[in-house]
């Protein structure tokens, strides 16, 4: 059985006592006395026979449970009344809606139990970041609650529908709070799913959770709201820290952005393109540094084409690659394959027959590069030429992730006709292909 995260004998004993988190216990064994408030157990450690209590000095300790302990319930947790803060907003400011997909932009800590709970009401947001009330008139709601890594193409359909609705309602911008792991995929998906955008769609997240004083959440959110309210572009972008310090944020075009670090605040980078803008939230300043593809305009009617095909896979090339992986996908009825090839866009010659078969069976195969930086070119080497002959669609300088999203969108919303798919894949629709890569678009070590 499991009780408050505890398992086994500890769980049994605690449930028999009928104690809850926050109740005060005295645990006595061989004359040693431990007194404190019962804490929940993190499930991962639930099998270990310890009872976690918070001492009066605020520290938690684990007391070993041997079965010989006398446990006395000394007191029960008192009722808490939570008073929602009252905050006034200025309706003359740009109206921005914050759509949350899960995770915590604002957290509240229960210091009695150590629990961190999300808070998403507008008053709570403004109480925590008072600066918001000077930037926008905010509306906020949660549309789904999933971990970033659990996002599926089905979620993109839902997210895009909600954004579309906000646009039709005439908001000045939409901010989507999203976990960072899969954020770039979702930002790319929305770029395709809604076109002729009247206002910006800004994805934002945090790399340090909002229960910490050092969280990047507040800074990122300020920058994102400012971008949604005032940016001259109407594209799907990611706004996060531009460097490790809290100085400026960058707006990356969703289709060109990639999470390039596991933990840094400035994990997102634009690849094969410049960021769209630099944002200084404290100075309320947005400097556009790249060419805008879609401009902000209230007059534009957004177009929603939001079906995504969830039978698409990314396959990476590596030494000893087994061609049957491709056969398997075809046999299992997958609708599209994105290859993450080596170098200019290669996979082993041994796989060419399998690829040829896939194409013959109507499964488009798109070639991108695991180099990430640079463009594929299938004419330079004979393997490339053989891949082209087999029907592979070159992905140009698209990120493998973007090619995956785009293929899923084309197959879901546009066509499954191979010739049409190839045409759309090689056409630049929302800035996913950069026809001119300059020398400067590559990170270098300072000398």
């Amino acid at each position, binding site marked *: 059985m499991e009780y408050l995260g505890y398992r086994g004998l500890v769980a049994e004993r605690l449930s028999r006592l009928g104690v809850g988190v926050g109740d005060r216990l005295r645990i006595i064994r061989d004359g*040693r006395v431990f007194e404190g408030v019962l*804490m929940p157990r*993190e499930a*991962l*450690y639930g099998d*270990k026979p*310890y009872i*976690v209590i918070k*001492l009066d*000095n*605020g*520290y*938690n*300790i*684990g*007391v*070993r449970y041997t079965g010989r302990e006398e446990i006395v319930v000394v007191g029960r947790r008192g009722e*808490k009344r*939570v*008073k929602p*803060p009252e905050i006034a907003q200025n309706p003359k400011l740009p109206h921005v809606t914050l759509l949350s997909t899960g995770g915590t932009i604002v*957290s*509240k*800590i*229960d*210091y009695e139990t*150590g629990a*961190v*709970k999300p*808070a998403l009401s507008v008053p*709570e947001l403004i*109480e*925590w*970041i008072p600066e918001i009330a000077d930037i926008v008139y905010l509306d906020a709601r949660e549309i789904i609650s999933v971990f970033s890594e659990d996002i599926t193409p089905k979620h993109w359909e839902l997210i895009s529908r909600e954004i579309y609705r906000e646009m039709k309602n005439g908001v000045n911008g939409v901010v989507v709070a999203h976990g960072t792991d899969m954020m770039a995929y979702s930002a790319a998906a929305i770029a395709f799913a809604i076109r002729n955008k009247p206002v910006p769609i800004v994805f934002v997240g945090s790399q*340090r959770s*909002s*229960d*910490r*004083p*050092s*969280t990047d959440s*507040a*800074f990122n959110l300020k920058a994102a709201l400012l971008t949604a309210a005032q940016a001259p572009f109407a594209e799907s972008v990611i706004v996060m820290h531009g*460097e*490790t*310090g*809290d*100085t400026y944020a960058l707006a990356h075009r969703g289709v060109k952005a990639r999470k390039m670090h*596991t*933990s*840094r*605040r400035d994990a997102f980078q634009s690849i094969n393109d410049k960021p769209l803008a630099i944002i200084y939230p404290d100075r309320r300043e947005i400097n556009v540094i790249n060419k805008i593809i879609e401009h902000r305009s209230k007059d534009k009617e957004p177009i929603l084409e939001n079906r995504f095909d969830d039978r698409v896979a990314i396959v990476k090339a590596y030494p000893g690659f087994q061609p049957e992986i491709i056969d398997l996908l075809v046999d299992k009825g997958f609708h599209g394959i994105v290859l993450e090839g080596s170098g200019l866009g290669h996979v082993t010659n041994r796989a060419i027959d399998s690829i040829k078969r896939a194409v013959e069976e109507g499964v488009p195969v798109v070639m991108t590069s695991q180099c990430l930086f640079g463009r594929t070119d299938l004419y330079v080497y004979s393997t490339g030429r053989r891949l082209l002959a087999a029907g592979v669609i070159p992905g140009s300088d698209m990120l493998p992730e973007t090619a995956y999203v785009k293929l899923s969108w084309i197959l879901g919303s546009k066509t499954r006709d191979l010739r049409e798919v190839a045409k759309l894949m090689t056409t630049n629709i929302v800035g996913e292909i950069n026809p001119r890569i300059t020398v400067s678009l590559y990170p270098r070590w300072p000398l």
Partner: protein
Amino acid sequence: MKLDYEELGLKVGLEIHVQLDTRHKLFCNCPTTLVKEDEEDVFIRELRPARSELGEVDPAAILEWRKRKKYEYYAPRSASCLVEADEEPPHELNREALTIALAIAKALNMDIVEEIHVMRKIVIDGSNTTGFQRTAIIALNGYLTVGGKRIGIQTLCLEEDAARKLGEDRDKIKYRLDRLGIPLVEIATAPDIHTPEEAGKVAFRIGQLVRLTGRAKRGLGTIRQDLNVSIRGGAKTEIKGVQHLYLIPLVVEYEVMRQKKLLEIRDELLRRGLKPEDVSGEIYDVSEVFKGTKSKIIRRALSRRDHGVYAIVLKGFKGILGVEVQPGRRFGSELADYARVWGGVGGLFHTDELPGYGISGEEVGKLYEYLGADPGRDAIVLVADHRDKAYEALKAVIGRVREAFKGVPEETRASQIDGTTRYMRPRPGSARMYPETDIPPVEVTGELLREAEKYVPEPPDVLMNRFIEEYGLSRSLAEAVLNDIRVDLFERLVETYRGRVQPSIIASTITNTLKMIRGEGAPIENIRDEHIEETIKLLAEGLIAKEAIPEILKYLAENPDSGAREAAEKLGLTTISLEELDRIIEEVIRENMDAIKRKPNKAFKIVMGRVMGKVRGRIDGRTVAERVKDKINNLLKT
């Protein structure tokens, strides 16, 4: 002022922090060294207090946040990584540090926690990039015997040290990240200490015990002491950062004095029939009174935009602000602390110290008139600064004045070098600790406890016996070493240089020699353990004579950046070879041939004296005597 501490009901608890000398930091793989010069990355951050569910925020945290300061971090590449930059989650708890902490817990007779949980303690003055200090309780309920009396040890925590503050300007505070994450043990005693002297002794004993594990860091800043002091009727005051052991009794004495004076002020206010409600919250702009003033501070303030002179009237307070609460500090200084901390102003003026500071008697008169206050009864407090800052400052002063009716407010205070203290921030509330979920809890296994055995320090009586029996120290020298904070250094040096340097020489260098040169005015607080070690090493290698030790240490005290070898060379105290000695003896004999021939009985005395004059400190005296004797015997035979 002679104080009767028993009568006053003095209670002191100590929190002793000692850095551990581990291979790497508590939650990452960086070395635990401070850097002087290194390539650094610099970045700026802000901190924002998290709310609790009940809407409560720690008062100390709110104070820091209201200052709206930014923090500039200098991240030296050799001693900090992404973990210190708060750009990577912490690694698992350093097992080496944990083992040492467990050893100390054993030596302090404590109950060891069975499963250790790392917590986050909110600290948002920027000294932790995360905004919290990671800390874990390792053991509880121990004791230590000092002077035959049992002193309770409440807790032993293992925690990460904070970043080093480099400086501060108007809108940001600068920190270096090398110190951040160095393991610290924090040992907290029960409030069982009842005199200032006892506080000093207990702090000394705990520091020594930690050093005896052989794994404590040494040198300035590696041990820091916080004190909790209260007297009957007063309040628990937390005094942070006492850097020197010798300051502890003085700090306690001054704090007792302060609390006693604050209670007397309270009684005086009641005697005058005043009430907290009588303290008006009204703040007045009195800039007009100071047009054409000679006070530079006020003139400068008045010349700037949105600046002015602002005042509050404290009815019936005449004379109170001038009451001295600690040497050189008046009640007015206490108020000025609040104005500085909460308003960010430079300070304040009050009428108990006016006229003065360029403010004329005439201006003071006009001020009383302007505010309709009674010069014979009332006090006025002035702040000259930006309007907003002045208001914040004066609001804080009003709050503090109202506290005066209760006596001693609960505060966290900072220790100053002269033993006095100043207000730092309110005492943190309970809403500041929550679990560090990035670090798994640690089971204290039997294996871990066995590992800890090797660091458990020996009790003092065992050490004493060993010093006498094994090292051949006299009882008094053994006692002196045992009562010295460097007893661990003594042990280590004896171990390293056994057979080459007598333990008694090492012992007396650490104890008597240092005392002696301090008597001669050398600033021995500059002497680091490495200085002593290097000096003993020179002796072991025969590069100096033991007579050279005091001169070398004196030089090092005055030039702490140089090494012992350099000192010996600069002072001309490096040993001379036997050949050179022979040459000098022969020269002295030649020069004094007449005298020797006249008084052959005195020949040794004559020659020895002159030779020693030339070689003292550079070669062992006994060797000189032998050679001189030989030479003279040879000479007299021929």
